[in-house]
């Protein structure tokens, strides 16, 4: 991650509002784009300020325009914390809103485009938001100094109040207008971390979005209602790669409330006055599908193919020494072959989007995770200049990777649905849960074939052959992750081990399958973390070593991994894996997205032999902890999300057709299956790194490693419960 050093050198006055707006220096083209976007807003009066992060209003509220989508991981609160810290604001005056789509102003500094993912929100915003806050503070102080006729250096700011020793004091709102007329300082000094009052402080802030989400008042995309709006559902092919051959809408159009039926690129769209008429219309629709180009292999066939491929030479993704030679001479070769199913993200709010457009422009409103590319996609399909298309990011009901679409398929479908019915007819596109689970873009199915050797209590060789689909190869995003023909997201966490093994080799096979796949919370680590952490545990057991001490002895070059492993062992009062009184403990430690997480799971066998996870201890090192309670929440949630899928999650294909249709068959973790979780955040002065994903990878192997001590072995095929493959 390189957080560009962007100087906050330009002030921007929101005319007529008496508000102080702090913006970034931006090139002329960016200004033009922003200005045009601001001028056109068909949905109503403009309420946001483009090209700015901080807005301070006369009513004393400080609104942070957040460039990252909020769907649970806390960027609204996190980025507002960074601003408030340097501004010395009172937390009660802080607000957060999504920034508009504008790549010149709101690019993710880790990506170069506006978008959220890879657990980068805090990491790439840490300096940028602090500078935005510090600049605002400096200008308010200057305005107060001029008003009070005292030196600026004599003014202090605390909890949103400016004070001078003479007794003069005032709040931000009083100086907002005056400050907005000042020149922004070219440079601002950021606080020394020792001066932090909010960053890293327990109990200093509450989530800004909790009240709305606890009262049903928060507006999600699915809640949008506008006059004349139509609700749209789309009939999509039952197999991936299928196409519409023909359709008959006669019966569908007889349904009360069905307004129109149109063929679009992704299927046949049914337009209704509400969701139920649209659904009934789709039910009555007769579509004949052309499946000549469709993927017809099922999970069983794919796994058999992958297993065979894993036994052939692949592309070398990492190696040192000559592992094959060592294995060839070993007295005993230890093998494990792990099979990971397709997984759906199944965010609670299914995919949806709202669009209104005409020849003058368009307004799209949805949970956009890649604003820059989605904005372009919508403009292209509607044949409108980009500056006439406005994209408003909505709070979204979860993502877990699902809304970050390499293919832009949702934005494209939304634009197609709107275009097909014509201008001046607002549409709300909604996917049902069945659409979601049958809709592809899954975590790819993977096979890992591991081979290792142990001699005299030491691990001497390790090979890993990885087989699965790449969701990057052949896409416009290829440059992001593909080097020398290897998609890094397929092998991350597996092509370099944190453990010292003399002879090592990792190979990869990228398969061609017609099933659309996508990153899924923690990406490659969802499978590599399991394979590596189960196999190291197995080899250590073979070598007669303790799972914790054995790991520590091999990870000398990774002090932060050592730190979390030691911390979690301390928390759990680790005394070997057990079992004790029917409960065993398993450990796993994974670095992902520059954060380090170790977990210990205490597991027994419950009713019907199902694993019962009683407690999870979790130690995390994510650099400087900005919001400790949000970090804790992400560890808790990551553990629950990971656990639910490791135990129950699978999206099976039967002759190319998805089998699990809804939550009755796509089993999701429920409250009685959630373990107690204890989290420790390690103190650190390193740059902050992400927490949205890194809680996920260790839980699966930690549970598996406990099961191995309960006589069940480490499950070779996931999910652990009720797997059909």
């Amino acid at each position, binding site marked *: 991650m390189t957080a560009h050093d962007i100087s906050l050198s330009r002030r921007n006055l929101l005319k007529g509002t008496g508000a102080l707006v702090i913006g970034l220096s931006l090139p002329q083209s960016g200004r033009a784009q922003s200005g045009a976007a601001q001028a056109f807003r068909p949905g109503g009066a403009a309420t946001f300020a483009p090209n700015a992060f901080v807005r301070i209003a006369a009513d004393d509220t400080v609104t942070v325009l957040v460039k990252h989508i909020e769907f649970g991981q806390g960027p609204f609160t996190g980025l507002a914390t960074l601003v408030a810290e340097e501004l010395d604001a009172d937390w009660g005056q802080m607000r957060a809103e999504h920034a508009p789509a504008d790549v010149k102003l709101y690019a993710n500094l880790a990506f170069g485009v506006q978008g959220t993912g890879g657990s980068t929100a805090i990491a790439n915003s840490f300096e940028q938001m602090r500078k935005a806050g510090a600049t605002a503070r400096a200008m308010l102080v200057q305005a107060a100094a001029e008003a009070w006729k005292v030196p600026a250096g004599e003014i202090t700011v605390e909890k949103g109040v400016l004070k001078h020793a003479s007794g003069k004091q005032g709040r931000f709102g009083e100086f907002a207008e005056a400050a907005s007329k000042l020149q922004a300082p070219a440079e601002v000094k950021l606080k020394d971390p020792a001066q932090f009052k909010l960053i890293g402080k327990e109990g200093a802030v509450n989530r800004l*979005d909790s009240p709305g989400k606890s009262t049903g008042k928060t507006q999600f995309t699915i809640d949008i*209602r506008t006059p004349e709006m139509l609700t749209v559902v789309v009939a999509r092919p039952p197999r991936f790669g299928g196409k519409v051959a023909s359709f008959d809408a006669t019966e569908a159009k007889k349904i009360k409330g069905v307004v129109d039926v149109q063929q679009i690129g992704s299927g046949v769209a049914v337009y209704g006055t509400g969701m139920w008429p649209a659904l009934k219309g789709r039910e009555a629709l007769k579509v004949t599908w052309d499946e000549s180009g469709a993927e017809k292999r099922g999970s069983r066939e794919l796994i058999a193919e992958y297993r065979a491929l894993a036994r052939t030479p692949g592309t070398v993704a990492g190696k040192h020494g000559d592992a094959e030679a060592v294995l060839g001479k070993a007295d005993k070769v230890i093998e494990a072959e792990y099979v990971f199913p397709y997984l759906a993200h199944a965010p609670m709010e299914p995919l949806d989007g709202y669009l209104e457009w005409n020849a003058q422009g368009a307004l799209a409103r949805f949970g956009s995770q890649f604003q820059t590319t989605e904005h372009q996609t919508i403009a292209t399909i509607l044949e409108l200049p980009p500056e006439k298309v406005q994209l408003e990011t909505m709070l979204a*009901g979860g993502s877990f990777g699902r809304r970050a679409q390499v293919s832009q398929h949702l934005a494209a479908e939304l634009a197609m649905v709107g275009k097909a019915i014509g201008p001046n007819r607002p549409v709300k596109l909604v996917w049902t849960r069945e659409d979601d689970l049958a809709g592809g873009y899954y975590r790819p199915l993977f096979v890992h074939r591991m081979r290792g050797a142990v001699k005299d209590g030491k691990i001497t060789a390790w090979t890993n052959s990885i087989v699965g689909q790449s969701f990057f190869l052949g896409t416009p995003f290829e440059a992001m992750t593909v080097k020398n023909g290897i998609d890094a997201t397929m092998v991350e966490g597996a092509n370099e081990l944190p453990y010292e093994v003399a002879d090592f080799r990792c190979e990869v096979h990228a398969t061609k399958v017609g099933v659309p796949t996508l990153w899924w919370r923690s990406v490659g680590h969802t499978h590599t973390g399991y394979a590596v952490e189960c196999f190291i545990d197995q080899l250590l057991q073979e070598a007669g070593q303790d799972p914790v001490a054995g790991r520590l002895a091999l990870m000398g070059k990774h002090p932060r991994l050592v730190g979390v492993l030691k911390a979690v062992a301390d928390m759990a009062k680790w005394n070997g894996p057990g079992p004790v009184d029917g409960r065993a403990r398993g450990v796993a430690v994974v670095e992902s997205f520059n954060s380090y997480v170790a977990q210990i799971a205490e597991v027994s066998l419950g009713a019907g032999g199902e694993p019962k996870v009683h407690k999870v201890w979790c130690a995390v090192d994510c650099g400087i902890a900005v919001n400790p309670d949000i970090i804790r929440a992400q560890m808790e949630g990551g553990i629950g999300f990971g656990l639910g899928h490791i135990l129950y999650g699978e999206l099976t294909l039967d002759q190319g057709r998805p089998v699990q249709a809804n939550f009755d068959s796509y089993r999701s973790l*429920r409250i009685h299956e959630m373990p107690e979780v204890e989290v420790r955040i390690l103190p650190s002065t390193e740059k902050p790194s992400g927490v949205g994903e890194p809680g996920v990878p260790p839980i699966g192997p930690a549970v598996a490693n406990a099961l191995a001590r309960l006589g069940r072995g480490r499950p070779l095929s996931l999910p652990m419960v009720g797997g059909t493959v």
Partner: protein
Amino acid sequence: MVHSININGTTHRVDVDDDTPLLWVLRDNIGLTGTKFGCGVAQCGACTVYMDGQPLRSCSMPVSAIGEAKITTIEALAGKEAQAVQAAWVKHDVPQCGYCQSGQVMSAIALLTEIRKPTDRDIDLAMNGNLCRCATYVRIRAAIHDAARTLEG
């Protein structure tokens, strides 16, 4: 046909097909969008409302079957149990994405109305019909216990 239903103390007349689920009547016809759609098959609990005070999955209840029953949605919550639960939800920062939380809050209030001091087992039984894909369950449990303490006074 036209159905007359009592929602949050007001009688609404809606002209929809008999099989229209209450959920879509609430959301699309009456404009009460606090009640969410998550699955449509009574598996996730995001659409939980009260029918004569009892939790109901509104996605699977046809409007024609409601009759004289009184429906309450999250928009009309009142009373000390509701206050205690919603305050505890904020205090513990329970929500992440927040989409399921209307349903979670409705189920939690119903539990505390029925059982003043629920055990973990009571919470498991009352809340296991409400899915949370963010897995905020640790905090849901803590917030319910906390709300129970508040109600104890």
